């Protein structure tokens, strides 16, 4: 008796359980792919088109969505949960769907000249406190900036050094020195940027330095020499003086008399360009077009490898082919045109 009742109870419990599960189970031919990290599910089962065409399109889509969502929810409810501030929270795993980045990964900053030097010499940065004790005012003040301790710009009196010219304005001298330091720092900053981007470092004539090297002095002499009204044409050379590098003729002109036919041809070409009604080539646009075409070609090739496509693919191919022809036709013309314009300007 007793054993029988126990079996009954067990069977009943089992049936109850099955009934409960019925509400949340969905049968699919192929299992869905889940990515709980993105709350994403993918159902690759074939969809029954007959049911879809019956006219109850919305109902069909909703029931399909319900089943798939139920499966996704079942999957999410399996994840470990936690209680955070009276709310039940499921911990999501890392997403498995690979999505492209927004921007390329940051590159490490190239070291500045000082950083290179410091590394070579093993100089390490020291952390300094922001506030320092000011003996004069008897309070803590900033080390730098506005209202700083030991502010030497606010002095009302400067002692004239023993060897200095007594008529020299020491305040003006200090200001000038400061301005020069600032300018030099800015120049160095720009040089660092230029070096980082591998651009040629801009020449600045001469930077203010207390001691100039031989090369700097030579440069100064050269600059001074050509800084005359006649661009240094009448400056004498010192004995054994070397000529500076990278000087000489830069432009070459056509002879004034001689071959007239080539000159005439040039003029005619120029007139032809000015007279033509064809629009000038927009290079950015052309380049964009060219790039798109190349992409398309590569894609087309891939598509052929991958498998045939329907009619749509053919159509798009046709349209693009036409556009491509135009682009190519324009290319060389534009190239030919440009140098002519330059000659005309002369």
């Amino acid at each position: 008796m007793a054993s029988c009742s126990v079996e009954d109870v067990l069977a009943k419990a089992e049936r109850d359980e099955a009934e409960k599960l019925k509400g949340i189970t969905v049968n699919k031919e192929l299992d869905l792919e889940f990515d709980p990290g993105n709350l994403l599910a993918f159902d690759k089962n074939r969809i029954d088109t007959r049911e879809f065409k019956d006219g109850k399109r919305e109902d069909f889509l909703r029931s399909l969505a319900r089943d798939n969502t139920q499966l996704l929810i079942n999957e999410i409810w399996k994840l470990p949960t936690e209680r955070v501030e009276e709310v039940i929270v499921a911990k999501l795993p890392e997403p498995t769907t690979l999505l492209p980045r927004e921007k390329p990964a940051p590159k490490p900053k190239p070291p500045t000249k000082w950083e290179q030097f410091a590394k070579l010499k093993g100089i390490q940065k020291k952390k300094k406190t922001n506030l320092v004790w000011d003996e004069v005012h008897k309070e803590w003040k900033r080390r730098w900036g506005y209202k700083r301790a030991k502010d030497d710009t606010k002095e009302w009196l400067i002692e004239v050094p023993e060897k200095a010219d007594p008529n020299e304005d020491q305040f003006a001298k200090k200001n000038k020195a400061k301005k020069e330091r600032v300018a030099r720092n800015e120049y160095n900053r720009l040089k660092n940027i230029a070096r980082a981007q591998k651009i040629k470092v801009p020449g600045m004539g001469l930077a203010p330095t207390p001691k100039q090297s031989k090369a700097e002095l030579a440069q100064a002499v050269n600059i001074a020499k050509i800084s005359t009204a006649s661009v240094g044409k009448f400056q004498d050379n010192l004995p054994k003086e070397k000529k500076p590098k990278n000087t000489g003729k830069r432009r070459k002109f056509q002879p004034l008399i001689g071959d007239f036919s080539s000159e005439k041809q040039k003029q005619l070409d120029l007139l032809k360009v000015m007279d033509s009604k064809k629009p000038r080539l927009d290079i950015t646009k052309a380049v964009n077009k060219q790039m798109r075409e190349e992409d398309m070609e590569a894609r087309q090739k891939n598509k052929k490898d991958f498998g045939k496509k329907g009619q749509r693919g053919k159509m798009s191919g046709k349209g693009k082919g036409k556009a491509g022809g135009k682009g190519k036709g324009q290319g060389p013309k534009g190239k030919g045109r440009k140098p002519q314009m330059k000659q005309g300007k002369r």
Partner: protein
Amino acid sequence: MAHRDGIVKAKTRRSKRFLQSREPKLIEGQKSSMIIRGGNCSETVSQALKDVYALKKPNAVLYKRKNMVRPFDDSTALEFFSKKSDCSLFLFGSHNKKRPNNLIFGRMFDFHVLDMFELGIERFVSLRDVKMDTCPEGTKPMLVFSGELFETDREHQRLRNLLTDFFCGPRVSAVRLAGLEHVLHFTALEGRIYMRSYKVLLKKSGCRTPRIQLQDMGPSFDFIMRRSHMASDDLYRTAHKQPRGAKPKKKKNISHDAFGTRLGRLHMQKQDLDKLQTRKMKGLRKRRGEKTTTETPAAKAPRTDE
């Protein structure tokens, strides 16, 4: 901000912070999207744009004036917009005779167009037209794709990836279970893509997992595929490249048991007991000229006797 040779130097702290926020980062946050109205737009398209904007809201910009842009001919304008608003996803809507009710979904990498898909709206039900409850703004939607086309066809595959990217919202480590109340369902069938948006109702089922009911929420679209532009494989691969520091290094020899206790495994070499530092005494001190090998008390003993 001072511009010089393409290098922008911030003049104030605030602008410096602003520029820093736009620099590429090791671990990127959520992509923001811009929703752009084209030069000519039908009522349907502009409403559709507004609805998608409502779905995407805290992380989207709506350009609602006329923008004469043709993304498939010349994408420079889009690239400019993307740079300006720091958005890498875009949705562009336009309407003309050749391509009526046109939406272009796309994404950028490094401010250049990566993928674009042109989808024509055949049927559209607005968020406004459905008089039902909606879900709160900024809800992370669940995404469901169905249809074998999404696996077999290369264009559809890429479109699936793009739509995931577009709608998936922020990357989160945990989610409130009661807050899962929005589902976007994409069905690819017979060359069309049906996008439906439902509100999820969690009902009691008798066991732990709830039973689900769906309620129409809108917007819902019937799309037809038109033109598409996919990135070349090289570019696509570059866009997926993760920097070295993005993944945390796996720590060796550490494991956790069921109770969350951290267990470590140590690998020890056999200790050389001869070199063990014992108590320091004057008598045991090392002397000058004494060989280290004979540094035992037995060897020292005769010497002290003499």
